[in-house]
């Protein structure tokens, strides 16, 4: 049983349990355990998140080793075998150009995961930098950055992204860039919020009284408290980025054909005939997108629980 079924009800007992538990853990193990390792352990106890993580690892491995695993060249056109239902040779059938759906699915995973991870990381990085500055420096820096996040958040992002991609031209790089440019405000706001709280924390006051400079305050004392919420955000953002990429590809603004991507494969489902008669053309990429996004969200939830802020206050009665 994981310990997360205890929801805090009245403060006293929750704290008491937490304190006792923390002490017990301390006594049980003589080695020192950093907050990070405690969070790791909390995460490992989160069964759903672990299953989801395992799934994601498998998807990632399949994507990385696609060239070795894929039974066919994903772009090999075979006019004589188009739209064939799943069979022994083509496990997931073939598409309208006779390309093997399974192979395209595996190669498509490369695109989806790359875009998801890099776009979310870039968004997280922008958010971290701007959020730290805004929260720590305050004043006009804060005001400017916050107005900027509001402007970005108030754009109908998909439409602007479509416009930008149309201008820049579709490629993995441009999609990542554009998604990152529209997704950083979420992280930025969280980072700013946490930074503002941390700025008032006793240990920051203590560090200032020692004469620790601003850069070190940010890099040493602030980043630590910011990383846990940011990790959660970046995880969830990567799910969003995967969805956005799929949406763009579905609209024909994704990676250049014939390169396979999950959203691009869904494009064929725009036709009603395909939708009703050739399920193997749209169901596998659809399920892949759905499961991947769901798994990422589960992992995000697991991380959130593991990084629970209550943990930092453990032992306080």
């Amino acid at each position, binding site marked *: 049983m994981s310990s997360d079924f205890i929801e805090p009800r009245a403060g006293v*007992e929750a704290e008491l349990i937490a304190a006792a538990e923390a002490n*017990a853990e301390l006594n049980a193990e003589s080695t020192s355990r950093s907050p990070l390792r405690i969070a790791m352990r909390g995460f490992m106890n989160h069964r759903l998140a672990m299953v989801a993580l395992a799934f994601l690892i498998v998807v990632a491995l399949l994507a990385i080793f696609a060239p070795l695993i894929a039974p066919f060249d994903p772009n090999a056109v075979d006019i004589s075998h188009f739209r064939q239902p799943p069979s022994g040779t083509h496990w997931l059938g073939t598409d309208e150009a006779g390309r093997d759906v399974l192979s395209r699915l595996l190669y498509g995973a490369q695109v989806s995961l790359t875009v998801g991870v890099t776009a979310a990381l870039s968004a997280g990085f922008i958010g971290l930098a701007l959020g730290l500055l805004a929260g720590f420096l305050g004043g006009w820096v804060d005001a400017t950055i916050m107005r900027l996040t509001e402007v970005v958040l108030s754009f109908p992002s998909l439409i602007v992204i479509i416009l930008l991609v149309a201008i820049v031209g579709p490629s993995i790089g441009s999609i990542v860039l554009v998604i990152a440019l529209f997704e950083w405000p979420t992280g930025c706001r969280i980072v700013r919020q946490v930074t503002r709280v941390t700025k008032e924390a006793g240990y920051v006051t203590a560090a200032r009284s*020692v004469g620790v400079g601003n850069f070190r305050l940010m890099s040493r004392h602030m980043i*630590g408290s910011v990383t846990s919420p940011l990790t959660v955000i970046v995880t969830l953002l990567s799910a969003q980025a995967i969805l956005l990429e799929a949406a763009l590809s579905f609209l024909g603004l994704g990676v250049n054909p014939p390169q396979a991507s999950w959203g691009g494969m869904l494009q064929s489902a725009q036709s009603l005939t395909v939708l009703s008669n050739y399920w193997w053309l749209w169901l596998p990429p659809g399920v892949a997108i759905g499961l991947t996004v769901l798994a990422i969200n589960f992992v995000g939830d697991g991380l959130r629980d593991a990084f629970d802020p209550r943990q930092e206050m453990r032992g306080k009665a």
Partner: protein
Amino acid sequence: MTAAPIESGVDEARTPLLSVRDLTTTFAAGRRAVQAVRGISFDLYPGEILGVVGESGSGKSVSVNSLMNLLPPAPITRMTGSVLFEGRDLITLSERELRRVRGREISMIFQDPSVSLNPVQTVGSQIAEAIHVHDRKVSRKALRDRSIKLLSMVGVPSPAVRYAQFPHEYSGGMRQRAMIAMALANQPKVIIADEPTTALDVTIQAQVLDMLKTIREETGAATIFISHDLGAIAEVADRMIVMYAGEIVEWGDVDSVFAHPRHPYTLGLISSLPRVDTETDELVSIPGQPPNMAAPPSGCAFHPRCALSQDREPCRTQLPALTPVDDGRMAACHFTGELDVAPDRRLKVAGPAPAPLREAPAGELLAVKDLVVRFPIKSRVIKHTLGHVQAVDGVDLTVAPGESLGLVGESGCGKSTTGLAILRLIESSGGQVVLQGRDLTNLSKRQLQPVRREMQIVLQDPYTSLNPRMTVRGIVGEPLETHGVGSGASRRKRVDELLRLVGMGPEHADRFPHEFSGGQRQRIAIARALALDPKLLVLDEPMSSLDVSIQAQIVNLLQRLQRELSLAYLLISHDLSVVRHVCDRIAVMYLGRIVETGTTADVYARPTHPYTQALLSAVPQPDPSGRGNRQRIVLTGDVPGPDKPPAGCRFHTRCWRAQDRCKHDSPELIDRFGHGHPSACHFAAAPGEDVPEGVDDPADDAVSADHR
């Protein structure tokens, strides 16, 4: 643990109102179970105030929450035993039946009134609701009338106006009164007050404690008063229970428990308290830490910290039963008989001999001149300044090398702000801070850097003052790193040395803060402050978030460090007893100004400012024997907000000596008696002495003061 019914030493004829037998409460924590309450039995009689005292984790709050079944439901919480209340066992009642008991027959007052009231409902409607849920037939008008009556009963001024106000319009003390009014709404038979005064200032605490006594007299309700503060217990309770590690270790009437503790833990608690009314030698702290309830010690849970046990066999293996000692008292100790030998109520523990008195400090290390700190109040929309909160308004202080100055006052008086402004962690708006002859107020950040080595701060809350993601070595070594002192190896050595200096060891250096208890964390924070060999430490309430027994350890540590390193302290505290014990001189602050200052001995013996007098008399003393004849000055009203301080003498709104002159003429802080002990009052006089120079006898004007 005892199964035997408890014989009441108070009144055999009366039947108990509430009877607790063998109550245990166990929490499931993951795969483990933590027994927070380990078989307690006690009786509550009608009309009595029963004090429950214990440190954090002693199970005092959990046990009373168990009485009302307010804990998370099974399977998280398991309770056994019985709680008999008027023939019903509260443990076995259904949630529905319990709801009828709660609030109507047994009601609770919680610790923090600022979170216990709903901020979006008027206080009046919340009181009315408390009546309404138990009696649907009351008309709206009657509800209103009764609520207003309750408010006036708990001493809320102009209750009809206050009825329609929201909690944020109430001050902290007023909110606690409103909470008490809610608890009284249905004329309960039992009131459970869980640390009701812990979040309040001393002068407000005195009001609330008084009120608890008045309520008992007026309503005849029995009260269970839970507190970690022995002084508060001694002040109000009739009988008391001392809890340790989820068990009752001592039980008896307050007078005899304080006069002759029969359990070494009780004795330890009493001896570890500094006193506001007398000089105390070195505090006798209880060694060690409160037990870990997930793995409590075998036998008597107190034996690892007990000086009496001396590791004797029964203490280690056998749980002592709560057995009657003399005159209806009970104690759970194998060797309770041996406790009588210490006639001075102190258990002598072999330790270092007290150091000789220090030489009187001379010279000037720190001089604060006319310090002013103003915070702008900004409008929300366009950021223009509407006005200023004058947090610190012309404060003068001096600290000599090796001296300790206590800066005392209630919350919001600006004492912490003063401390932070001295360290330039907050920018001051005027005045000077001179350290070793150098004015710090205009130094640039770079120029300030070497000065930072000379003065350091220890903050109040050791749970937030250490970065949870850094190891102890990183934390203590950070000042060394920042100032480029030494290299890797010498820094390591220095950190080990510092840890040893504060009573910890190098083996702790690679651990993280969350692995330590509050007292240990405060030691780490002190080690960090000492890293650069400062001359001055600003101690911002360093003991106030610690348990009593741990507080004594930290006080002793600070005193030892002062002797060994000839440090100067600026101790910022609301605890007058600790200040008396630690400090050479004291400055009393009220609303941003110093109202009285002098040597500790002088000010405590002959306070001349009415505020100092009120403050001193409001401190609850852990000595019930004197409570009948002690003169208490209970101030009326609350501290005005620092954004709109009263004109003239800032204290005049609460002062019983105030006259017309005080309303516009601000008194200066001058030595009015030639005692070297200035006070800022036009009518300054020590208690029992006349106001000098042809001023009317203040006793005639004692209208708002409540002398008893």
